[in-house]
């Protein structure tokens, strides 16, 4: 076995292979570093490389073996890390170094995690293409003239390019699942409250969740169990007993999979539709019962509700960046305090962040609050109700993850509403707080297609059950982009 072959194994197989080859973690980290150095200039994945730290952490792991094997990983650069720059891909935080750790990072450190670096995203996670980054766009590993999706495009691209086995992103309206689908990898958005948001730079607090991205289901589970769990620092954190998340091949727990017709209508690319339909037939062959269901409000209203409630929360959460305590500031050039606010924010935020803050300020402003924000909350209730009814009949819901194949760089940057439509199938799960996963289910002209599985709150194990049984009857997770 060659060293490079290790990059294609899952974490457990890697562990076994390392023992056989008498390899240390330091050796493994050096293989990844070599790979990153070779590919990063072409794909623009990393904002900050932490190779010295990774080597140090690897040496520590070599001397302190643990039972939980955690392969080298990357973090989206909106998860804060003490002493390591956390930029949110923005000018306003370009030189910001946090003074404490996100809970997720603390948990990974506790389990001998090895951090390779902080990776690219849309500024403050606002976007579906990783083009809104002050550090330039990340390229799609399957076709470098296309976007990797977003906003966790750096994380998904890093995993697809085998620069790491597991990456962590954040998902507010699809920002883990959509780039996972566009890069041909697995991406999970956990149940709201299961993974601590403490130290995740807040975008829309009622929807944000950190989730793992990996090439296969087992590594996604490994990533998930390493970051989940109650956190006293987070007021929406849920204290619940972890389940046994490991699936069993050919012994499906899930009986019925629901397919909502609304997710296969207008706006869905024909080739994506065909690919997902083949996957549904294959699942039937795996022994799952498929049932047609209806979610009347989800697709019809989710993007509208999402872009009202999310921007409202963005306008409030991003108010803290004011040029006073940290971040980009015009303190020395402004005449008074208001000027410091106006100019630091005006010069420090990119166009999309500003657009969302302005729109969010509008929907919360006097005279419009009831018509927009409050009305959106009502429709959000209806969307949740649709899911509650559906889960009385089926265990898992299956849809396409994205309406289109990965699009060309620059194709949607001039038309924000078109960009927002990328969230069409993913935003409903965030609005309802339920877990959802994107699993690779085929290729069209060598571009990946993802299918989305959604389950009721806390039923991540059911998503892994279907995902794993599907994955093992195909070979999509072993397909690697030709570089």
């Amino acid at each position, binding site marked *: 076995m060659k060293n490079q072959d290790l990059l294609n194994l899952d974490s457990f197989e890697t562990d076994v292979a390392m023992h056989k080859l008498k390899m240390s973690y330091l050796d493994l980290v050096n293989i990844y570093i070599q790979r990153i150095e070779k590919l990063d200039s072409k794909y623009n994945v990393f904002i900050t490389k932490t190779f010295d730290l990774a080597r140090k952490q690897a040496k520590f792991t070599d001397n302190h073996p643990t039972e939980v094997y955690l392969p080298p990983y990357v973090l989206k650069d909106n998860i804060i890390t003490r002493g390591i720059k956390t930029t949110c891909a923005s000018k306003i935080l370009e030189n910001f170094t946090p*003074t404490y750790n996100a809970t997720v990072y603390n948990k990974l450190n506790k389990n001998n995690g090895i951090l390779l670096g902080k990776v690219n995203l849309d500024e403050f996670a606002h976007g579906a293409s990783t083009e809104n980054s002050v550090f330039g766009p990340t390229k799609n590993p399957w076709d470098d003239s296309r976007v990797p999706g977003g906003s966790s495009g750096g994380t998904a691209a890093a995993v697809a390019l085998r620069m790491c086995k597991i990456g962590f992103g954040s998902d507010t309206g699809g920002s883990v699942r959509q780039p996972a689908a566009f890069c041909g990898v697995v991406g999970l958005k956990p149940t709201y409250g299961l993974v601590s948001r403490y130290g995740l730079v807040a975008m829309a607090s009622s929807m944000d969740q950190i989730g793992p991205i990996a090439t296969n289901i087992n590594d996604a589970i490994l990533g998930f169990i390493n970051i989940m769990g109650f956190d*006293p620092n987070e007021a929406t954190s849920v204290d619940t007993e972890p389940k046994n998340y490991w699936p069993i091949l050919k012994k499906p727990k899930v009986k019925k999979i629901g397919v909502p017709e609304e997710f296969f209508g207008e706006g869905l690319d024909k080739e994506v539709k065909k690919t997902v339909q083949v996957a549904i037939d294959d699942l039937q062959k795996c022994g799952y019962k498929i049932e047609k269901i209806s979610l009347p409000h989800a697709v019809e209203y989710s993007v509208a509700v999402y*872009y009202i409630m999310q921007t409202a929360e963005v306008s409030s959460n991003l*108010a803290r960046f004011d040029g006073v305590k940290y971040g980009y500031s015009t303190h020395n050039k402004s005449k008074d*305090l208001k000027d410091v606010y106006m100019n630091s924010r005006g010069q420090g935020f990119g166009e999309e962040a500003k657009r969302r803050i*302005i729109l969010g300020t509008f929907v919360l402003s006097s005279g419009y609050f009831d018509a*927009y924000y409050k009305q959106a909350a*009502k429709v959000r209730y209806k969307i949740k109700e649709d899911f509650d009814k559906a889960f009385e009949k089926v265990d898992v819901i299956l849809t396409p993850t994205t309406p289109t194949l990965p699009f060309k760089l620059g194709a949607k940057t001039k038309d924000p509403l078109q960009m927002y439509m990328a969230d069409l199938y993913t935003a409903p799960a965030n609005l309802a707080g339920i877990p959802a996963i994107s699993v690779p289910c085929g290729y069209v002209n060598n571009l990946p297609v993802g299918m989305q599985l959604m389950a009721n709150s806390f039923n991540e194990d059911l998503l892994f059950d279907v995902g794993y049984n599907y994955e093992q009857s195909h070979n999509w997770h072993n397909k690697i982009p030709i570089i």
Partner: protein
Amino acid sequence: MKITKKQIEYLSNLARIELSTSQKKLFSFHISDILDYVEKIKKVKTKKELYAPSLNFWAQKDEVQDYDRSELLKNAPEVEDDQIKVKAVFKNQDFDL
């Protein structure tokens, strides 16, 4: 719903964000476009509301956490005597009353 450049200016002041002339024009166009799209939510008639999928909100204890002061100050734009320097909050005339 049409959002005018003047409304954008009003919102930019509320949100404390300076916008360029071209941004004001662009945002008035984009936000009008987005508001036209979201208009459809008004068709849904229902009373119940959902603001967050809160499964169990609970109150945190009010506890002081310790941070390294010098580490915190490293990020500050302007520091004087170990404190963050801020522009005057009150203008002179505020005290003339």
